[in-house]
């Protein structure tokens, strides 16, 4: 049988360059596609995802946490929750994994340019939003205000804690961090749920603000309420959602919501989409 030239299901071998724990059950993976030319030509947008596979365990979708403005290496932050992630956690630096993508719509970065950017993340929601945050910081002159609100259960569970704490030094970023409880006794930032951080941001220009949100399902309800209170238009509130993306290319059906496929038409949706399609959150 003649072999197809392009098989969208065929993973590309990729090497784990670095991996280290971010929290007790979340690890950071830095990965490079084994073939150098392909590694450099892998083009993606912030907010897109990739399918990562481990031989014998299977394949699963992960948000890309690195920024397209730093090509060559791809970064993921991965929580150990299932068969594939357990297999990933057992791997070591220099091991090979399978990778294909990028998939999904990603954030409409061209639309957001020239506007204020308000990023709200909770827990593992930092995984996809770190990509767009770093993209904004790498192209700082293309955006107006950049505001980051990040909430975690407690300091030891805050993903990218040190990285974000260091960002507080930057004068061109308004960075606000919060934890529900302080289990270390050393936390010097805000204590309270992520919505308590909204008090700290002043003079929002709603018509010219895009808000990017990602977090656990329970967080959306409260954050959306705050954003609507700020008069940010519903189609300028963007969120990236989790579904069971199994194939990434709109064939297997598992990520269907209403009549769209999260892997093709998402995972980034506006608040208007959410109201319009009902099943989203």
């Amino acid at each position, binding site marked *: *049988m003649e072999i197809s030239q392009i098989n969208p299901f*065929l993973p590309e071998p990729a090497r784990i360059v670095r991996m280290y724990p971010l929290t007790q059950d979340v690890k950071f993976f830095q990965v490079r596609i084994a073939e150098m030319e392909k590694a450099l030509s892998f083009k993606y947008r912030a907010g897109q995802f990739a399918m990562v596979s481990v*031989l014998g365990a*299977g394949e699963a979708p992960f948000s890309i946490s690195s920024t397209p403005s730093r090509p060559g290496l791809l970064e993921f932050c991965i929580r150990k929750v299932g068969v594939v992630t357990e297999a990933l956690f057992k791997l070591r630096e220099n091991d090979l994994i399978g990778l294909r993508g990028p998939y999904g719509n990603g954030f409409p970065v061209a639309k957001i340019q020239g506007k204020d950017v308000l990023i709200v993340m909770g827990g593992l929601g930092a995984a996809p939003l770190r990509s767009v945050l770093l993209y904004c910081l790498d192209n700082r002159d293309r955006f107006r205000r950049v505001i980051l609100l990040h909430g975690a259960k407690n300091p030891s569970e805050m993903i990218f804690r040190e990285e974000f704490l260091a960002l507080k030094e930057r004068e061109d970023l308004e960075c606000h961090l919060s934890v529900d409880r302080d289990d270390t006794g050393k936390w010097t930032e805000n204590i309270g749920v992520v919505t308590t951080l909204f008090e700290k941001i002043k003079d929002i220009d709603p018509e010219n603000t895009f808000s990017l949100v990602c977090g656990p399902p329970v967080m959306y309800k409260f954050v959306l309420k705050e954003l609507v209170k700020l008069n940010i238009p519903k189609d300028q509130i963007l969120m990236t959602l989790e579904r069971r993306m199994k194939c990434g*290319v709109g*064939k297997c*059906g598992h990520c269907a919501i209403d009549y769209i496929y999260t892997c093709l038409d998402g995972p980034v949706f506006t608040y208007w989409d959410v109201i319009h399609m009902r099943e989203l959150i």
Partner: protein
Amino acid sequence: MRVVKLPKKKLSPFLEIITEKTALWAPIRKDNGSHVFKEIEDFSKIDLDFTRTILPPKKIFLPPSFTMFKAGKKKYKEDFSHVSPRILFGVHPCDIHGLLIMDRFYSHIFDDPYYTKARENTLILGHSCWPDENCLCISTNTHIVDEGYDLFFTDLEDFYLVWIGSSRGDDLIRAKPDLFEENIADKDIQNFIQWREERDMAFQTEINFSAMADLMELKYSDILWEKLGDACMACGSCSNVCPTCNCYNVLDKPALSEDSSEIVRCWDACTLENYSEVAGGENFREKRSDRLKLWYTHKLQAYISKYGRPACVGCGRCIATCPVDINIKTVSHALDGEPVDSFWNRFHQEVKK
């Protein structure tokens, strides 16, 4: 399109010639009376006297389970062993329309090589049919076909009108042109017209599918979904037998002794419990009613919104298959406001007993 005439007794010689080098798949009758598409070795086994096969021909293009890759530590090897040249004979118009919907779906944005390769390697020889009480194809406008086949045989008692639908179909005819008659007499045409009129009159059910997209939207929160969910057994049979259901799952089957694995693709159904469950246990459609609603959103709303026609080809398989009578007919009637409670209430009580 060219049409030629084939006397019935010449069908077998024709099939023998064109399948000298290519496998023939056609309907055969099982001992229990139902029909299935099967590879034919003995031509006398072909039975064209059927309304619908248990499974639609999708099983030939994407088998219920097949290997996508044989994978080693460093290399994934594509496996297309489910693909081989075939002639598929006896496909009814509804199933040809089913394949046309699959064609569109599997080539949308990304091309699925496992489907398209199998499709390219298969010649479709359609065959006319007669509706039973479950056939709805006149309502879905899939009782006639003008594309999606290589040859189409209209059965008119002692001869066939053979419609040539593709260049490859034309090649088949040219393999033995003297079997066919080029001249179609006025009497034959009259015969065809009369057959078609009688066939169209034979349908027993009609559904106004154009209204369904709006009704799905208006009845999104209707109690009917809860009732359906209560009765549904979440067995996935409706998806298995539906010509337009395409969902699948992928499993990694590691070999025990070595660093290799088979990546296997198998049919899945959105009505099954863990269909929408993600790692960590979050299930976006835990309720049967939500999963049924997704099934019917796909058939009666999504496809109509996008392409102006339902993703139902009226084959009647879900009607013949569902053990608790949840099917395109009863759900459409329920959406149309017809009382369906009597049946489902009764069922509920019977189960309780």
